[in-house]
């Protein structure tokens, strides 16, 4: 399995220049817009989206079929992808958080560290959901069709959120109480929730990949 991880890392190396460029652009935006914790949320998302690029390469070169001729099990193939993606997510989070503090230091303003960490946690959550959706969909439908399925799912989620917001307002519930929950004790729920989402996604991906034919 180590070889599969190395393969993805080598592929990502060819993306390094682009990544640095986008990170620099995001940092510039953060400075201009004075949204100091923006990087802490956006970089985890950006780095986790790279997993879609990796699957696209695998798809294009029929790597999955080739990998099944090597002494690795289908589960190893899936596991290596989740490991690489989780590492990317962790790297994006650390980089985003550090850069957020750098921007704050450059601007010489006082922003509570808690705000940056909470924004990073939000970024990790969104990135984990994104990654957890992308893998099973890409394995099931391939990257071409998978893109449309993901757009559909995100459109559905957006509509759901809008309707939920309206319902909360109709029910005269204070949105503030919801956000207070997630910035208070609720934030501790996010971490196990993220782990559960990734684990469920991994199990579904393994099941799809094992049954898949080439």
């Amino acid at each position: 399995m180590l070889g599969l991880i190395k393969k993805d890392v080598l592929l990502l190396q060819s993306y390094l220049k682009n990544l640095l460029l986008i990170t620099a652009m995001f940092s510039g935006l953060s400075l201009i817009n004075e949204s100091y914790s923006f990087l802490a949320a956006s970089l985890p998302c950006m780095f986790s989206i790279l997993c879609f690029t990796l699957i696209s390469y695998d798809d294009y070169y029929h790597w999955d079929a080739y990998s099944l001729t090597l002494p690795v099990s289908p589960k190893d193939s899936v596991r290596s992808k989740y490991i690489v993606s989780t590492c990317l997510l962790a790297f994006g989070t650390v980089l985003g958080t550090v850069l957020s503090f750098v921007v704050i230091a450059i601007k010489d303003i006082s922003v509570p560290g808690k705000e940056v960490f909470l924004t990073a946690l939000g970024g990790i959550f969104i990135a984990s959901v994104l990654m957890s959706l992308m893998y099973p969909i890409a394995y099931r439908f391939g990257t071409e069709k998978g893109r449309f399925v993901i757009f559909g799912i995100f459109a559905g989620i957006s509509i759901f959120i809008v309707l939920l917001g309206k319902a909360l307002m109709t029910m005269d519930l204070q949105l503030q109480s919801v956000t207070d929950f997630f910035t208070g004790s609720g934030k501790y729920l996010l971490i196990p929730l993220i782990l559960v989402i990734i684990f469920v996604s991994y199990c579904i991906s393994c099941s799809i990949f094992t049954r898949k034919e080439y």
Partner: protein
Amino acid sequence: MENNIEIRQMTKTYPAFRLDRVDLSVPKGSIVGLIGENGAGKTTLIKGMLGLVHPEEGEVLIFGKDAKTSMKEIKTNIGVVLDGSFFMELLKVQAIDTVMKGIYDKWDTALFYDYLQRFGIDPSKKIKELSKGMQKKLEILTALSHHPKLLILDEPTSGLDPVVRNEILDIFQDFILDEECSILLSTHITSDLEHIADYLAFIDNGQMIFFETRDKVLDSYGILKCDQKKFERLEPSDVIRYRRNRYNYEVLVNDRHSIRRTYRDAVIEKITIEDLMLLYIKGEKLC
């Protein structure tokens, strides 16, 4: 004689195609050529034995082990070249060594670089910078660099010029010098098989037509050429397939020496694998 591969009754059904209870053996120390037209079931058979498709029925034993339960272990001793799937072209040739070291316990870096040098492949080049022939050679030498006992090759020489093809066939013949090793080679280029195959397995429309030694196939089958009168006098059981040309008939016969004794004035020519395939697939059957 022991077999490196034994396939028994493999059946795989698709909406428009069925691989129907196919048996195949690949004896140790031999090269088995798998022949048949496009869509005959050669690739499905190879994919079925490697677990890339899941046959409904049948048993696959590789090195005497059940492929369903011991596939990961079996694959440590197999080198595979599939048509159209390999490393990403963005990667450099040397990246293959880095990756494969993490996959095969027996990966031999020195051997890999030795092969690269032998075939004039620059390890610092990206795969996409290599010609098609070089890329194919790279696929084959990658399959060889962990000291496999069995090579499974799907169209390894397609699209290559005769010089490169000959180099590759030489590699296969070197590989087979170890009598524990075998090659299963699926190809459209039947002339290659006439040079190197020990056995021929002919698959058509999902069914195994024959599995024979190459010498027996080339010695036994023949093409009887005759006019219509003589054709009408042939015993139907002697006619495997026939083709009516403008001036004569070409009849595919088996056991051509015996046929020659029966029809003394008939012209019976030796057959090539290509002619055999063409007559079998395109020829007509006597009712």
